[in-house]
C-alpha cells in the first residue's frame, strides 16, 4: 500500500509541474493586455510601459516563468494586479468559502442523489423510479444560472424566507452562515445530485442482479441488509469515482453559483480574474485547482485500494 501511494504521489507531482507550465503560458496566450485593463480609459503609452515593467510583463516569457516557479515554490503567488493585495491572502480568504459551498453541495447531492438512486433501483419500474429518474433529467438539464435566479426570486424576493445573496463567515455567525449557504448549496447540489442518482441507480441495479445478492437472499438475509450492506457497499466504488470526477463540475458550477449569490469564493475570483487579465490570480487559481484535482484523484485511488484490494494488488504487480 505504501509503494502504491508513493507511486501515485510521484505521478501527481509531475502532473502539477506540467500544469504549471501550461497555466503560465496558456494565460499569456489569451488575447488582451493586462496593462490596458489596469491603465483604464485614459492610458498613455508611457503608463502602459510602466505598468508592464512594474509587473515584469516586459521580460522574456521563460524568465518570467522561472521567477514565477521560484515564487510559487516559496509559497508566494505575487500580488493581484486588480487591487494589489497579496494573491496568497486572497486565496486563503476565498478557498475556504468555495470548499464550504462545495462540501454543502456535495452533502445535498449525496443525501438526495444516493438516496434517490437506491430507492429508484429497489423500486425499478414503479412510480418512485419514474419520479427519481424525472428528477435526474430535470436536474441535469436546468442551467445553474436559471435555477439560481429562480431560487432567489422565489425564496428571497417572493417568500422572503432566505437571503438573496451575501456571505457571512462561519466563525462570525454560524447560523447566519448556514442560512446564506442554503440556497447556493441547493442550487449547486441539484445538478450533482442528479448525476449521483443516475450512477447509484445504475450501479445498484447491476449489483442487485448479481449472483452473490441472490445467494445472500437465499440465505435468508433481510432485504435491508442485502441492500444496505452488500449491494450498496459494492456500488460505492462507482459512486466514489463519480464524486471525484464531478469535483471539477462542482467547481465550475460554483463559478456561476457564486456570481448569482454574490459569494466571494474561488469561482467568482476566477471569473473576475479572467475578465481583468489578472495573471497572478488566474495562475494561482488554476494551479490550486489542478492540485486540488490531483489530490482528490489521489484520494480516490487510495480509497479504491481500501474498498477493493484487487486494485492495489494489480497496481503493485504491474508497477
Amino acid at each position: 500500500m505504501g509503494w502504491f501511494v508513493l507511486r501515485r504521489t510521484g505521478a501527481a507531482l509531475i502532473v502539477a509541474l506540467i500544469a504549471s507550465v501550461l497555466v503560465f503560458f496558456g494565460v499569456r496566450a489569451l488575447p488582451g493586455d493586462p496593462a490596458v485593463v489596469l491603465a483604464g480609459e485614459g492610458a498613455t503609452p508611457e503608463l502602459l510601459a510602466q505598468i508592464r515593467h512594474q509587473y515584469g510583463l516586459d521580460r522574456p516569457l521563460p524568465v518570467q516563468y522561472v521567477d514565477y516557479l521560484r515564487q510559487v515554490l516559496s509559497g508566494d503567488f505575487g500580488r493581484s494586479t486588480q487591487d494589489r493585495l497579496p494573491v496568497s491572502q486572497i486565496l486563503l480568504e476565498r478557498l475556504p468559502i468555495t470548499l464550504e459551498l462545495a462540501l454543502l453541495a456535495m452533502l445535498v447531492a449525496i443525501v438526495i442523489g444516493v438516496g434517490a438512486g437506491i430507492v429508484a433501483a429497489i423500486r425499478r419500474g414503479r412510480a418512485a423510479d419514474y419520479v427519481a429518474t424525472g428528477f435526474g433529467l430535470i436536474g441535469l438539464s436546468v442551467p445553474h444560472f436559471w435555477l439560481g435566479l429562480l431560487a432567489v426570486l422565489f425564496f428571497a424576493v417572493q417568500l422572503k424566507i432566505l437571503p438573496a445573496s451575501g456571505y457571512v463567515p462561519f466563525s462570525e455567525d454560524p447560523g447566519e452562515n448556514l442560512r446564506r449557504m442554503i440556497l447556493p448549496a441547493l442550487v449547486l447540489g441539484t445538478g450533482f445530485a442528479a448525476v449521483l442518482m443516475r450512477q447509484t441507480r445504475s450501479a445498484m441495479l447491476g449489483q442487485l442482479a448479481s449472483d452473490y445478492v441472490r445467494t445472500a437472499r437465499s440465505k435468508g438475509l433481510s432485504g435491508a441488509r442485502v441492500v444496505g450492506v452488500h449491494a450498496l457497499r459494492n456500488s460505492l466504488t462507482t459512486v466514489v469515482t463519480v464524486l471525484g470526477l464531478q469535483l471539477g463540475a462542482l467547481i465550475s458550477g460554483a463559478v456561476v453559483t457564486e456570481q448569482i449569490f454574490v459569494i466571494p469564493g474561488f469561482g467568482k475570483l476566477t471569473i473576475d480574474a479572467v475578465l481583468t487579465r489578472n495573471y497572478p490570480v488566474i495562475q494561482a487559481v488554476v494551479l490550486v485547482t489542478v492540485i486540488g484535482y490531483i489530490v482528490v484523484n489521489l484520494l480516490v485511488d487510495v480509497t479504491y485500494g481500501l474498498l477493493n484490494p484487487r486494485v492495489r494488488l494489480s497496481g503493485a504487480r504491474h508497477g
Partner: protein
Amino acid sequence: MRTRKFIAVLAMTVPIALAGCSSGSGGASPSIAPPAGATFDARPVKAGGTINVALSQDPDALDPTTANTFVGREVFASICEKLYDIDENLKIVPQLAAAAPEVSADGKTVTIKLRTGVLFNDGTPMDATAVKKTLDRNRTKADSARRSELGAVSDVAVVDPSTVRLTLSRPFAPLAAQLADRAGMIMSPAALAAEGDNFGAKPVCVGPFSFVSRTSGSEIVVQKSDKYYNKDQVKLDKIVYKIITDSNVRAANLRSGDLQVAERLATNDVPAFQADSKFKLLVGGGLSYQGITLNAFNVAGTDKAPGTVNTPLGKSVQLREAFELSLDRDTINKVVFNGLYEADCNPLPMNSPYRDPAATCTKRDVAKAKQLVAASGVPTPIPVTLLITAAPVNQRLGEVVQGMAKEAGFDVKLQPTEFVTSLDQAKSGKFDAIQVGWSGRVDPDGNVNDLITTGGSNNYSGLHDPRIDDAIHQAAATTDDTKRRELYTTAIKAQQEQHCVIYLYHERYFLGTAGDIAGIRYYADGIPRFATAGFAA
C-alpha cells in the same frame, strides 16, 4: 390551500426569472417615458444605520494616484474628497478648496485657497503641505495614472498653510476639472509615509466616511468619520459596497431587501422599479457616450503612423457617410434602451455649454445612403465586420445596426468579443468597425483629446486631421468659454466630416434605492454621493 399558494407564487416568479435571463435587452416592450430627472431626494433623514450598496464592477486599488476604474471613483466619493467637485449642473464647485482657482493673466499661474480646520480621517491636518505632497506624488510617481492629467503642472509651491500655487508650463483650461477628479483627491501624508505603494490597501483622505476594510472582489466597508469637517450632516453609520456585476442579480437583491441601493439598473428593469412604490429611482449620467468607430486610418496600431485601411469603409469617406446615414439614432434608443437614453451625435453632454447650440444631427436617409453607395462603385453588399462586446444588450444593438445598414447595402457581420480582447483589437487596428464608448469627463477636453487627435492612444480610427488637433489644443489653452466653444465646434464638425466616429447616444444611469432611503445625490457623472444620505425620518 398551501399548494395553491405555491403555484401562485411560482406563476409570479417564473416569468420574472425568464425576464431576468433576457438581460439588458429591451425585449418587445414599447418605449416608456424616462423617469423624471431627479438627482436628489430631499426628504429629511434620521441618524444611524447601515446600507448595502451594489457596485457593478470591482474597483482597482483605492489609491487616487494609480486608480483607473469608474467604480473606484464611486467609493472615493465617500472617503476621499477633492479640491473641487461638480454640482448637479456640471458646474465646478470648491470642495476642499475654499474658492475657485485664481488664474494669472498669462494663464500659467494658478493659486488655490484651501478650507481651513480640515482634518484627514487619521486626525492629521489637511493643509497646503499635504496638497503639495499629493500633487507631487500624482505628477511624479512612476505608475501614476494622473501624470498626463497634470502634465501642464511644472511646480507646486506652498504659499502659506492654506494656499498653494501651481506653476504651469502652458495655459491649461481643464485643470480645475482634473482637480475635481482623482488628481485632486488629497491624501494624508502620514498615511502615505506609513503605507507607501500600498496606500490603496488602507486609503486615508478627508471624507464623510473612512475606510474600514476590503474583501477582495466582494465588498468594501466604510464607516462614518468623526474627523470630517461637516460630520453633522453625515447620518449613516456605515456603507457596505458590494460587488455585484450582473444587473439581474443587482435588481433581484434590491427587490429582496438585501440591498438598499443598486447602481446601473438595466433599462428593461427600470419600468418595474418605476411602477413599484417600494422603490425610488434616481437618474444620473449623460456625460458618457457610446458610438461606432469606423477604422479608416489605423493600419498598425494607435501608436504607429496612420495610413489608409484597405477596406471599403477605410478607403471611402462617402461610404462611411452612407453607413452613418443608414442609422436612426432615435429608433436605436427606443428599440434597444426603451427610449431611456439620449440619442445624440456629439461627444459632449447634451447640457454642455461648450456645444454648438445650432448644431443638429443628421437624420436617417436611406435614399441618400444608397446614392452614395452606388456612386462609390463598390459592389453591394459591402461587407463590414462590427466588433461588439459579448453581452445581450450589445448584441441587440448590433442587430439593430445590422438591420438598418442592410437597407443601404451594407452586410454587417457581428463579431461578439470579450471586452478586453476587443480593446486590444481596437488599439492594434484589427477591426472594420467597433461599438465602443467613453465614460465622459466634465471638461470637454477630456471627451475629445486623445480620442480624435493624431496619435491619441484611444483614437482607434487613426484620425489625423490638423484642423481637429489645432482646435482641440487651442481650446485647452484658453479660458475664454466662448472661444473654447467655437474651437470644440470646429473640431467636432471636422470629425463629423470624416465620419470616423459615429456617436449614437449618451447613457443614463439608473440608481435604484429602497423607498426609505433619501438624501443621495446623483449627478451627471453617475457617482452616488452618500454624505447626506440615510433612512428617511
